[in-house]
């Protein structure tokens, strides 16, 4: 970040002292990442907007008690994550995967499919984006949240673990499972005819 930009920590101190412009700047800095998390967790723009508003209202109300033990971003994403969780309580398609993936330590793909082309070239393709969104949506919440925070929002594993209130080791395990599950899903989309049958123990 350029040196002429105040750090989040400085803005928080100013906002806690009643500087509304400082809080507005914090909103500007973080609203897109919060919205991205909410939209990809919830897959519904209206629900994502509700979660976005609730997150920043809670942050505004909670700011006087924020003791800066965590970074502002970690604290804010924890609020955002809880706001999305509240809206995720209704069962989602694929939710039953949760137990399977959480409990099966040696879950192996039934197929190992090579990808026929470099998917990066297709990234701007709307159909590809929809396939990627759909793949994320099939993940159980515990895997979806760590994946979105770590690989989409770009938090470090440590930060994502702090947001989710889980150990770093648990975060790594979940992240790996999420990535493997997404790899399998996307293989249906990008996969070449070459399929190697795998034996599941």
């Amino acid at each position, binding site marked *: 970040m350029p040196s002429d930009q105040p750090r989040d920590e400085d803005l928080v101190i100013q906002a806690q002292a009643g500087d*509304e412009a400082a*809080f*507005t700047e914090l*909103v500007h800095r973080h*609203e*897109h*990442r919060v*919205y*991205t998390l909410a*939209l*990809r967790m919830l897959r519904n*723009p209206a629900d994502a*907007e509700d979660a*976005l*508003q609730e997150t*920043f*209202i809670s942050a*505004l*109300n909670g700011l006087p008690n924020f003791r800066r033990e965590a970074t502002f971003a970690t604290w804010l994403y924890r609020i955002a994550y809880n706001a999305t969780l509240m809206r995720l309580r209704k069962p989602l398609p694929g939710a039953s995967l949760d137990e399977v993936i959480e409990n099966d330590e*040696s879950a*192996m793909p039934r197929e*190992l*499919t*090579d*990808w026929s082309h*470099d*998917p*990066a070239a297709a*990234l701007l393709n709307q159909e590809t*984006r929809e396939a*990627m969104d759909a793949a*994320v949506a099939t993940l159980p919440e515990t895997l979806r949240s760590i*994946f979105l925070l770590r*690989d*989409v*929002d*770009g938090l470090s*594993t440590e930060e994502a673990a702090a947001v989710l209130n889980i150990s770093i080791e648990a975060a*790594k395990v979940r*992240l*790996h499972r999420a*990535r*493997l599950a*997404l*790899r399998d899903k*996307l*293989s249906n989309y*990008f996969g070449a005819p070459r399929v*190697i*049958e*795998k*034996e599941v123990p």
Partner: protein
Amino acid sequence: MDHLTETCREIKDKLSAYLDGELESALCAEIEQHLRGCDDCRVMVDTLNKTITLYRNYGQETVPPDVHERLTRVLNLQQLKTQGKPAE
């Protein structure tokens, strides 16, 4: 038909850490040696890497202008409420 070996399984469990650069160099060398001789694991690491790259490059959503406007409005109202001022 290929079958997963115990080594394949062990390596598969470590692939995220390998791709994230979290493993010690000796372990990386061990994995790379295995990859040189195992097509299945090479496909796995390549497609897993592509999966991660795809989503990292996917980018963030931008808050639509109308959503941003409504957010600003509710926060202004909330600030007024907190300060005990009547909303305009």
